[in-house]
């Protein structure tokens, strides 16, 4: 509930558009009531053979109501939708403001891109909060109250019946359904999750299923999950229909009471018969405004859970930067790790165990080891994405705890395994590196990674989808070259680049990084001869370290890995 209140606060920023849409919504609703009221009155009046001018006036007002109703409805829609999209923009900005300080550590929890799109989907579904949850009851209540006020002039009883109808259709029935909606939603979500797992396993594990002849069993499981999911959806659909029907029945019954009470009052002589048709028409029309209330519980539940999910993404992450210190700029740092041990939050296994390394300023270090040995984790600790559990990391003698994340990142050229590229051009993506880059500088940087073929104005699609894996890696390296910071941290930067190009790139890169401190995680063991130090990790621990020649002479783990690599056909 707290989370939805904060959405409401955000929504209220658009007061002007909201008030305008409420005004026109009210106008449209009340004009519809007026239209039918006057038509009922017109016909009753005609029955009594009135003078023609009276009818002319009534007909004119009928036309006026019709016109006002149609135009106001248009204006209402226009302004309410405009408000909705402005609210969406505010929601995005506000969520971004909350999320931004928590990145990138918050993303480690949500490794799959799917979750990120769910965040986006949740933000988008919240835009409906105004249009489908907040707005309909407001219009409903105002239109109803005005109508009730009007009818009270003719019959206080009819007014009271309408009031009862208002309370029933807009509060009692929706809240009764809202309480159950949560359960229905949960079942549907669970059913979907179950089916999604089955479908994923069926398609991604297809070959193994086929070979082990488990395909038929899996098909059956999948169909069972699908049947279950469809059943839950069906329940949901029928439930929604039921809620709609109940609302309809209530409004019909209320109109019926209006008619019955009106008829009774007329026969008792307490109400002029000429108003009976009008009151009945009013009642039938005014409940049309109550129709959206049937769908309200569902939308409310959607908004509520979206708001809660979003709040949870940012709530439990309390990343408070207490550090004040800054890294000395434009000078290659020396790095020490001392007895560093690290376990990922929520895991039992230590990802890194008692790591002690010394990287002198300007030194070149390679970290090698099998996949899953903790190489990337080590790099993340250096970037202060995670705090270490035990031991300490020092940059130029200053503890990492005292340094801000920003100051470390500012002084680092980081190339990760997966680097993001934004929708735009090559130029846009390179300009991220530094302000005031000239086209010449950018072209030179592209040449250093053998991407001369690219023009700076070539388009880049979302996530760099139009680039190959190798091109993306090379582009990321050229972006890092442009940044020109004195510390290089690279995680398998050339895993998708062929060996010859890799060698060319490294030659330029080490020329570029002559004076910088370099940490290179490498999947290949070639070209490591010139490194000052090679650190071999396995299962989170350092197994060996030394120069290439030392490690080869030792004939240990590195030597054996090297033998295997020699044995592997690089081109096949």
């Amino acid at each position, binding site marked *: 509930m707290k989370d939805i209140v904060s959405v409401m606060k955000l929504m209220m920023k658009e007061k002007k558009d909201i008030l305008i849409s409420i005004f026109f919504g009210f106008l449209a609703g009340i004009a519809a009531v007026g239209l039918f009221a006057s038509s009922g009155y017109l016909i009753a009046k005609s029955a009594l053979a009135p003078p023609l001018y009276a009818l002319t006036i009534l007909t004119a007002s009928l036309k006026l109501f019709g016109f006002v109703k149609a135009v106001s409805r248009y204006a209402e829609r226009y302004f309410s939708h405009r408000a909705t999209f402005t609210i969406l923009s505010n929601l995005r900005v506000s969520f*971004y403001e909350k999320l931004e300080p928590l990145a990138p550590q918050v993303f480690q929890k949500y490794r799959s891109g799917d979750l990120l799109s769910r965040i986006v989907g949740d933000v988008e579904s919240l835009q409906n909060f105004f249009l489908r949850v907040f707005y309909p009851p407001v219009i409903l209540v105002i239109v109803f109250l005005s109508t009730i006020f009007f009818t009270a002039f003719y019959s206080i009883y009819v007014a009271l019946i309408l009031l009862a109808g208002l309370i029933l259709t807009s509060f009692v029935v929706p809240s009764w359904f809202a309480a159950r909606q949560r359960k229905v939603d949960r079942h549907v979500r669970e059913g979907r999750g179950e089916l*999604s797992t089955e*479908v994923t396993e069926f398609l991604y594990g297809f070959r193994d299923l086929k070979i082990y002849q488990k395909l038929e069993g899996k098909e059956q499981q999948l169909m069972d999950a699908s049947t279950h999911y469809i059943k839950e*959806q069906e329940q949901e659909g029928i439930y929604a*229909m039921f809620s709609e029907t109940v609302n309809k029945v209530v409004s019909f*019954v209320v109109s019926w009471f209006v008619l019955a009470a009106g008829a009774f009052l007329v026969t008792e002589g307490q109400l002029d018969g000429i108003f009976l048709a009008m009151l009945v028409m009013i009642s039938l029309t005014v409940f049309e405004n109550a129709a959206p209330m049937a769908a309200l519980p569902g939308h409310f539940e959607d908004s509520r859970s979206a708001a809660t999910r979003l709040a949870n993404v940012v709530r439990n992450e309390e990343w408070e930067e207490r550090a004040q210190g800054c890294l000395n700029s434009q000078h290659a740092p020396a790095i020490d790790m001392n007895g560093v041990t690290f376990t990922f939050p929520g895991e039992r296994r230590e990802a890194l165990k008692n790591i002690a390394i010394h990287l002198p300023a300007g030194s070149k270090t390679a970290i090698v080891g099998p996949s899953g040995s903790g190489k990337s984790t080590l790099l993340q600790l250096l970037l202060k994405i995670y705090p270490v559990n035990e031991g300490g990391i020092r940059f130029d003698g200053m503890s990492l705890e005292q340094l801000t994340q920003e100051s470390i990142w500012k002084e680092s050229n980081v190339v990760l395994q997966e680097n993001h590229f934004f929708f735009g051009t090559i130029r846009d993506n390179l300009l991220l590196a530094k302000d005031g880059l000239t086209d010449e500088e950018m072209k030179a940087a592209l040449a250093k990674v053998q991407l001369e073929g690219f023009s700076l104005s070539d388009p880049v699609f979302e996530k760099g989808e139009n680039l190959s894996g190798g091109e993306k890696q090379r582009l990321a390296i050229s972006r890092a070259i442009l940044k020109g910071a004195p510390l290089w941290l690279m995680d398998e930067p050339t895993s998708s680049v062929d060996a010859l190009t890799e060698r060319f790139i490294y030659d330029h890169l080490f020329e570029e990084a002559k004076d910088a401190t370099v940490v290179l995680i490498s999947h290949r063991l070639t070209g490591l001869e010139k490194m000052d130090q090679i650190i071999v990790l396995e299962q989170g621990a350092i197994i060996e370290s030394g120069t290439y020649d030392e490690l080869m002479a030792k004939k240990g783990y590195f030597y054996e890995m090297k033998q295997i690599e020699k044995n*592997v056909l690089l081109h*096949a």
Partner: protein
Amino acid sequence: MKQLKELAFAQRAVMSLLLLSSILTGAMIIGQAYFFVTIVDRVFLKDESFQEIVPLLLALLGVLVVRAALTYINGRTGVKMASKAKREFRQSLLAKYARNPVHASLQGQSGQKVSVIMDAVDEIDSYFSRYIPQVIQTSIVPLIILAAAFSQHANTGWIMLITAPFIPLFMIIIGIKTQKKSEEQLEKMAEFSGKFLDTLQGLTTLKLFGRAAKQKELIQKSSLDFREATMQVLKIAFLSSLSLEFISTLSIGMIALEAGLRLVVFENISFFTAFFVLVLAPEFYLSLKELGSAFHTGRGSMGAAKKITEELERTEMAVQWGQVPLKSETPPAIELQGAEFSYGEEGFSLKNINAAIPPYGQIAIVGRSGSGKTTLLHLIAGLTAPTAGNVLVNGQPRAEYNEKDWFDQLSYISQHPYLFSGTIAENIAIGGRTDASRAEVERAAEKAGLAGLIESLENGYDTAVGEAGRGLSGGEKQRVAVARAFLKRPSIILFDEPTTGLDLHTERMLQISMKELAQTSTVITVAHRLHTIKNADVILFLDQGELIAAGTHEELLQSTAGYRKMFSAQRGVAT
């Protein structure tokens, strides 16, 4: 969409129910108007007492309740029909994908297929649950109202008849006019709305470059641009409903005016008749307008239906199987006779392959990436069928053998074995012919060098892995696949040798395990390691889908330039 309509109308019982409930709904609308008007007429003009109209009131209450109930039945029927359709669509997609040769499922389109089978099928829903019931209702209810209007006051009927076509006409005109414009805008909208996701995905990069703060304004700008683009489209939609509103208001006004004039000036119709047609008129136009909104929801479904039909219509060559049993202790002899494989428009991935694989043979398939090695492995495995030529097993086409017998003989160790959600024990046991005992599973794990790792886990063999469980490293997964093979003890092993990234322990275990497994079976390896290649009895050297040469390592080094070149390049880089 033709198929959707056919599918809907095929459900005859459901259609009749919808038809019936629509007719009844029409009747209830007439009944409602009749009783309302009669009650007002009697009380207002005929001065009847309240007691006299009580039966009428009760009848009206009944009509109202039945009308609401019919809405419920109509909606419920739609929902049920949608369920049935979704189930059928999912079933046929599944049947399609299950027949699907492995080749197609490995084209990196699995994600897309997940989305078709999940989301596209879900999107079909509104076509059946909303659109079809509404279409039936709209084609019946206005007719009934029209008939009632004609029976009471023909002029009203004529006005309705003349004005009604303007509503669909306007919808079509506006629809055509706006289609192009909204398509243009849609592209822009997608672009703007993708910006937010793009920024979130790239947040790490932005922060590492110290650019995150600036993005706030960009998000705002693209969101507001999105708003403008969307409003362009919506304005047109709103304008269209505005004009529909005008048409119906105008028409109702005409009906009222005509009836009023008759009542007052000419005095040739009764109050009852005039009031009756006036109450019916809005119901008539409302029903017509509702079709428009139902059409809107139906259109979304049609796009999804198109996606599904495209999937269903894609032709695949299913792998054929026969009845001949394949039971023997020794591995079968396999022979490829002019086997070819081509897929879609990509041309040949394998051309005219002739090779013999004797029992207990150690075969290595060697070639650059993209030369068709994995396809050849699939062909031998019976996971895809050759588009020409034959794969012979013990001299008979593989297609004549019993499928189960064949796969009972076979293990396939891929580079990225799939872990199903379940325990480690279950994931090993999946390889077995029958339900393997825990002791057998443990023995297999032991042989694959997994026992140590598994025992170190808190829940041992019952540790959950896969989707919802603990992740295993590449080396660990590889060893699970080997354990599956040890459990099965197949007579043919297909092995896609890993390239790099394995730990030494796995590397050693793989060598030892494969050696042991090879003693009882034929092993066909897509080879990346020199020792595997050197130890092979026969090397099949592939280049661009063609079998360039076959022989031992030494023979090929001597005879084949391309092969030699590959190895000299190797020495050049791997210093």
